[in-house]
């Protein structure tokens, strides 16, 4: 109540001043009053009622028509008052949702956490950044009893919470694969069955799976419709697309995946990415794969993790710090 009396006093003063001589100063105090009334959650119809009663007090000779018109205005503003209160309550709900999503994002982060393994002779860098709070990209490293390193990178078609939920399923399907079956083609064939069976028909996953054998330095891989990565050949200094044919996960139940093999020489690099990397849009259109290669070349002397960090920073800047899609970039380098 005290706030209100105080407000009444301020309003009376400002209005009287303005009615006397129409100065900008008085209008400015009016604006300051509205800042305060909004803060105190006073609705529009109350302001009109206050205005009317103060006007009656300071200008009692005003014609009745003006007072009646204010009653009319008050009735019209009723709807805005209701909308205003609804807005306040929706804003509150939005806050709640926001913090709920934040918690979910943390849960997801813990669920999908993967450690970059220590493999003799390899240097690995990885970065994955969601466009919104939750990530629809996923990468995963495993090491089997023969010290072979498996690397999976997947992207759910779609973004946000549905994509993130879907990704958690992939993670558990991967965890439950039998130890000895980490051959890339059979990993994808297994996951395809899981996805086809369990996911909404309009939701699909692209995935790349590779297996690095540190004994003979052969990298075998297969792709389920995933954006092709790059292969850097140290001997020639050339970047090549790692083309691999294969259908998206979850479209056809009995899809077979072709497995490719590549002998990795010292200094060679395997670069894996999600389509958030090449689909990222700038003022001049899409990032071309060539541009990405340029960025990698510019940073090639750095450590693997620094390379991916730097590229992310550059692409983020190019997009004015607004990612349109989740972004994942992994770089595996065979040490010289």
């Amino acid at each position, binding site marked *: 109540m005290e706030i209100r009396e105080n407000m009444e006093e301020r309003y009376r003063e400002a209005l009287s001043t303005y009615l006397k001589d129409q100065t900008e100063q008085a209008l400015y105090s009016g604006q300051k009053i509205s800042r305060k009334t909004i803060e105190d959650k006073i609705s529009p119809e109350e302001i009109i009622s206050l205005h009317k009663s103060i006007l009656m007090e300071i200008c009692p000779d005003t014609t009745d028509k003006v007072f009646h018109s204010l009653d009319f205005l008050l009735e019209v503003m009723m709807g805005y008052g209701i909308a205003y209160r609804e807005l306040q309550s929706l804003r509150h709900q939005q806050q709640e949702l926001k913090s709920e999503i934040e918690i979910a994002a943390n849960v997801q982060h813990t669920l999908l956490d993967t450690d970059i393994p220590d493999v003799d002779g390899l240097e690995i860098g990885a970065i994955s950044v969601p466009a919104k709070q939750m990530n629809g990209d996923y990468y995963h490293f495993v090491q089997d009893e023969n010290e072979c390193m498996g690397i999976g990178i997947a992207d759910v*078609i*779609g973004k946000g919470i549905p994509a993130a939920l879907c990704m958690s399923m992939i993670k558990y399907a991967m965890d439950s694969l039998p130890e000895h079956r980490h051959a890339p083609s059979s990993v994808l064939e297994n996951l395809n069955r899981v996805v086809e069976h369990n996911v909404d028909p309009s939701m*699909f996953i*692209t995935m790349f799976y590779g297996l690095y054998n540190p004994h003979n330095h052969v990298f075998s891989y297969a792709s389920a*419709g*995933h954006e*092709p990565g790059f292969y850097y050949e140290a001997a020639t200094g050339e970047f090549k697309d790692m083309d691999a044919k294969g*259908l*998206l996960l979850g*479209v056809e139940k009995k899809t077979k995946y072709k497995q490719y093999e590549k002998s990795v020489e010292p200094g060679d690099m395997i670069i894996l990415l999600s389509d958030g990397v090449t689909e990222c849009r700038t003022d001049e259109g899409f990032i071309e794969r060539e541009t990405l290669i340029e960025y990698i070349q510019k940073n090639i002397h750095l450590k693997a993790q620094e390379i991916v960090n730097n590229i992310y920073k550059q692409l983020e800047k190019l997009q004015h710090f607004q990612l349109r899609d989740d972004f994942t970039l992994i770089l595996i380098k065979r040490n010289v």
Partner: protein
Amino acid sequence: MNITIDVQDINSRVEIQVKGEIDAYTAPKLRETLFPLSEQENISMVVDLSDVSYMDSTGLGVFVGLFKSVRSHNGEFRLVGLSERLRRLFDITGLAEIIDINSDAEGGLK
């Protein structure tokens, strides 16, 4: 960003002209407009994408869903007028192997 979807239904042959951008915001409209059509038996559905300036993976999802729905109702589904970039998207995802995207020559929309 907007999208217009023009549907021409001539006896069980539906020709659809899509104009604009297909992304997470416009994809639901595309899905809602085309899905009911895809559920008719023996339908022949042709979607012309020549005026699509941008499509992200959400759009891809819509077309795969449509393709599966048409196929399960014994129909025929074709995409025509794909840009270089779109064609690449269908190639990479392996969808070009199962969805007809190459029949512009015979019977595509003008």
